[in-house]
């Protein structure tokens, strides 16, 4: 019999208690491990989503809200100067206009419908053409024209928010960035409703425009629009040197925040500057709260584990005070008694810790998923702050009156980007690598050390003479 084998044997002297202790401690360790894994998974998800949000910064006039309009136009020249800010890769500008039936021979393929009619008939709302004074559903929606410097991404960034739909050219060509020609690329649904194809012409602001391409952006609203060179739209609509929005692209993720700050400083308080990261962060807040929950649960589990170990060892030593006294009386040094109880403590915590590690790794995935899904369920029911669904279908400002018009913001931006995000939340996967196993083992060692220290301290306080006096 050595000290080690005696310690091992003593660990299971009271089988019921030892198994109970191991079970409780194991579960707490399992909880800690699964929280650690869930936290890692959620954090890496947050990082991944942030990394995938891109490096764009959206600039719009302050007070401008989609189809509701508002604010003062941005200066095209000022926007152009943003190119001088360090770490800016590109600045693309958009000018959105609406063509009423008196300004164009195009008809919008989208029917206003009952809701649109209600909005259209409301105070301060729609002022397009209504064929019947009593019918609330018979007015015609205006056609949205987007003047763009970068036709390839104009819809997704300008009208579409943060990149839900990307327009793809299905026929013809597109115009160049600095083009001043009277040309247009039209959406597929607009094209079919107006019998347009490459080479066709239509009238806008009294000018004949030639269709040079047809795009498909994947959404009915986006496909009901017209893309034209920025300068052309500025000149034809009488908004020379003005823009309703711009997209600034930073050279890297790390620089997005600083570029956004610089843009804000440059343009002053009359503009809204929102980076795609900021949008993502607000959308990621449920995940962040999951990360916080897991952190606190992790801390609580570790504290609980420490307390369990502490209480168990104090209980064991108290129960065996007499035995400790006897061991000392028959010649055991304090250190050999301490070593024996340390072995006992390490055996208990080691078994519990290993069991907890295995259970924790197995349980971490379901725990992480249920935490994430419960949090995101709350979040998606609150909706996305980008605009109430359906704002694109009513309340258009007449292009002739105000310079601004919004449009498809919520209808294409909402479902595209943010629904994609929400569905990616539920796919949070924990993975236990070697680092996790090492962290777990480290936690077990720390617990064992605590247990041993407690054992050592309490046993060293046992005076051997007590065994004589208590008889």
């Amino acid at each position, binding site marked *: 019999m050595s000290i080690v084998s005696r310690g091992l044997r003593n660990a299971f002297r009271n089988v019921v208690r030892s198994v109970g202790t191991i079970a409780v401690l194991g579960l707490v360790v399992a909880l800690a491990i699964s929280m650690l894994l869930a936290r890692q998974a959620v954090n890496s998800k947050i990082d991944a989503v942030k990394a995938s949000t891109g490096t764009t910064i959206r600039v719009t006039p302050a007070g401008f809200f989609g189809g509701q309009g508002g604010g003062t136009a941005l200066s095209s020249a000022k926007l152009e100067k943003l190119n001088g800010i360090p770490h800016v890769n590109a600045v693309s500008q958009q000018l959105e206009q609406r063509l009423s039936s008196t300004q164009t021979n195009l008809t919008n393929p989208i029917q206003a419908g009952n809701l649109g009619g209600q909005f259209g008939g409301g105070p301060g709302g729609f002022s397009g053409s209504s064929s019947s004074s009593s019918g609330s559903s018979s007015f015609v929606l205006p056609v949205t024209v987007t003047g763009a410097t970068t036709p390839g991404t104009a819809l997704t960034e300008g009208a579409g928010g943060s990149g839900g739909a990307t327009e793809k050219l299905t026929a013809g060509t597109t115009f160049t960035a600095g083009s001043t020609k009277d040309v247009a690329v039209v959406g597929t649904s607009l094209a079919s409703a107006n019998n347009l194809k490459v080479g066709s012409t239509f009238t806008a602001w009294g000018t004949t425009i030639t269709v040079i391409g047809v795009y498909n952006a994947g959404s009915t609203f986006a496909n009901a629009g017209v893309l034209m060179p920025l300068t052309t739209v500025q000149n034809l609509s009488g908004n020379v040197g003005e823009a309703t929005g711009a997209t600034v692209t930073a050279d890297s993720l790390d620089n997005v925040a600083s570029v956004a700050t610089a843009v804000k400083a440059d343009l002053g308080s009359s503009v809204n500057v929102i980076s795609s990261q900021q949008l993502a962060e607000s959308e990621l807040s449920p995940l962040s709260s999951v990360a916080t929950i897991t952190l606190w649960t992790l801390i609580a589990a570790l504290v609980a584990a420490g307390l369990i170990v502490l209480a168990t060892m104090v209980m064991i030593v108290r129960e065996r005070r007499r035995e400790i006294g006897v061991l000392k009386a028959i010649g*055991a040094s304090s250190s050999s008694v301490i070593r024996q109880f340390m072995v006992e403590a390490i055996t208990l915590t080691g078994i519990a810790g290993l069991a907890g590690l295995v259970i924790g790794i197995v349980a971490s995935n379901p725990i992480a998923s249920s935490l994430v899904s419960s949090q995101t369920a709350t979040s998606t029911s609150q909706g996305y702050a980008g605009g109430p669904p359906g704002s694109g279908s009513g309340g258009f400002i007449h292009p002739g009156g105000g310079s601004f018009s919004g449009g498809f913001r919520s209808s294409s931006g909402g479902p595209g980007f943010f629904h994609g995000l929400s569905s990616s939340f539920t796919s949070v996967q924990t993975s236990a690598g070697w680092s996790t196993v090492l962290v777990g083992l480290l936690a077990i060692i720390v617990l064992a050390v605590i247990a041993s220290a407690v054992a050592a301290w309490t046993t060293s306080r046992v005076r051997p*003479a007590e065994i004589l006096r208590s008889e």
Partner: protein
Amino acid sequence: MLRVTDLTKTFTTGYGEVTAVDHMSFEVADGEIVAIVGPSGSGKSTMLGLLGLLDEPTSGTIEVGDQDVSTLSATERARYRCSTVGFVFQSYQLIANLSALENVTLPMEYAGVDKVTRRERASTLLDRVGITGDMQSRRPGRLSGGEQQRVAVARALANEPSLILADEPTGNLDSKTGKRIIDLLREVAAEFHATVLVVTHDDKVATAAGRRLTLEDGKLVA
């Protein structure tokens, strides 16, 4: 030779200071068997604890051979208990989850005796005190009180101590069994040339000892 000079032990209790052992002085020759008698609370067990270095005296000296053992460090006291003292307690105090044989090997393990030697020696000692055959591999719970005390005697003898301290060794035993234990202690004391101090209430035990020290209120009265 065991020489105790002016030995005093005071405790601070809720009722104030209690002097359990009050300026006690005596000598015991090698191989002598001494009974320590006296009413409850007279300081018998406290004195035994002081002699076994389980407790530190408030003042006074304890000399074993030519060495003053009352000034030893904690490590040296543990070594002294291991090599020089053998304890026998009233309620045997065997380790419950170890067999009789393992209980006897324990002091030898602390003394650094190798595994094979200590098992052989423990078996021999158990044979000597009458614990033979498969009884040696039984745990204390499966031995009678008398048998357990025999195991305890064997354990006390494990490192061939020069001083055996027995605290009411027959207190939990019937008189017949108790007498056998006392006889055993006398026999082994002679065999191992050990000095034996027995704290007892039992007059027969006291009579069996060669000499009697009577304590009252911590003082040696006879």
